[in-house]
């Protein structure tokens, strides 16, 4: 198992995810987080994405994208777990949102629900 060496994350922990596209990740009319920000990339090749990546800090969330980010999203672990999903630490600087079903319908459903719980960092 990948995650055995890390303890469970606290319900109260806030985790962060970078916005990596200038448009489409925030609803242009409400300015709220759009489902795209939490949608599994099931069309990715050669294999679909299985978890949503997050980080412990806004800076870490942006590091992987060489500064080409357009904001940071914050979401609490307890809100993720309330949906029946989980957030687990997989490395020293990485968190994976797990248990999202790997099909378009459910992945979209959960992406919408996660986006509703998330907020754009000021």
């Amino acid at each position, binding site marked *: 198992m990948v995650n055995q060496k890390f303890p469970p994350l606290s319900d109260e922990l806030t985790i962060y995810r970078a916005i990596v596209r*200038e*448009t489409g990740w925030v609803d242009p009319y409400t300015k709220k987080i*759009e489902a795209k920000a939490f949608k599994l990339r099931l069309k*990715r090749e050669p294999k679909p994405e299985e978890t949503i990546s997050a980080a412990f800090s806004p800076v870490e969330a942006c590091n*992987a*994208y060489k500064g080409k980010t357009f904001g940071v999203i914050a979401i609490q672990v307890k809100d993720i777990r309330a949906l029946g999903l989980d957030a687990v630490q997989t490395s020293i600087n990485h968190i994976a949102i797990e248990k999202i079903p790997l099909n*378009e*319908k459910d992945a*979209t459903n959960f992406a919408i629900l996660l986006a509703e719980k998330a907020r754009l960092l000021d």
Partner: protein
Amino acid sequence: MDTILVPMERDYSSRKSYKNTDYNRNQSIINLSVASGEYMIKNLSNATIQNSNFEITKQHLFEIDNTDTDSEEVEDEWGAIRPTKYAWKLSLELLQQIFNQISTNFPLGFASLEENGGIELIWKNYLTKNEVRVSIPPNQNIDMTLYVRDIGNGKSEFYASSSFYQVVKALQFLHQ
């Protein structure tokens, strides 16, 4: 457990999957639109634009194109950085067809780039929280898909191969 891709760990082993895709390289949607003579949008910021849902939705579609940059790059760690020619042309055609069909009730929408160079067209009813999402494929070998969320009956539906007719029906339902 399968391997989890971790961007922070610079795992690029499964990237570079869209090399054969016909990206809209070095020519923006706006330029192509003007060249086609069909969509004159050079002065989008001017007051000449009709303040209609159709025009606003179309404007948001144009905004997802990043080809005004000088970069030769077509992908980054997340995926495609611009839509394929096929995807944006089909998106424009679809919006126009929808407008032709339901012009007076054209719902306000926006667009989002997909990781494979496709485009997602999104419409929401902010009162009911119902949603319609149309995934425009990056090439002709992939079908257009349709996602419909209906909070009223607590269900969502996903159509792996959708028709224009289904999209129009879904949009008509959105604001009922």
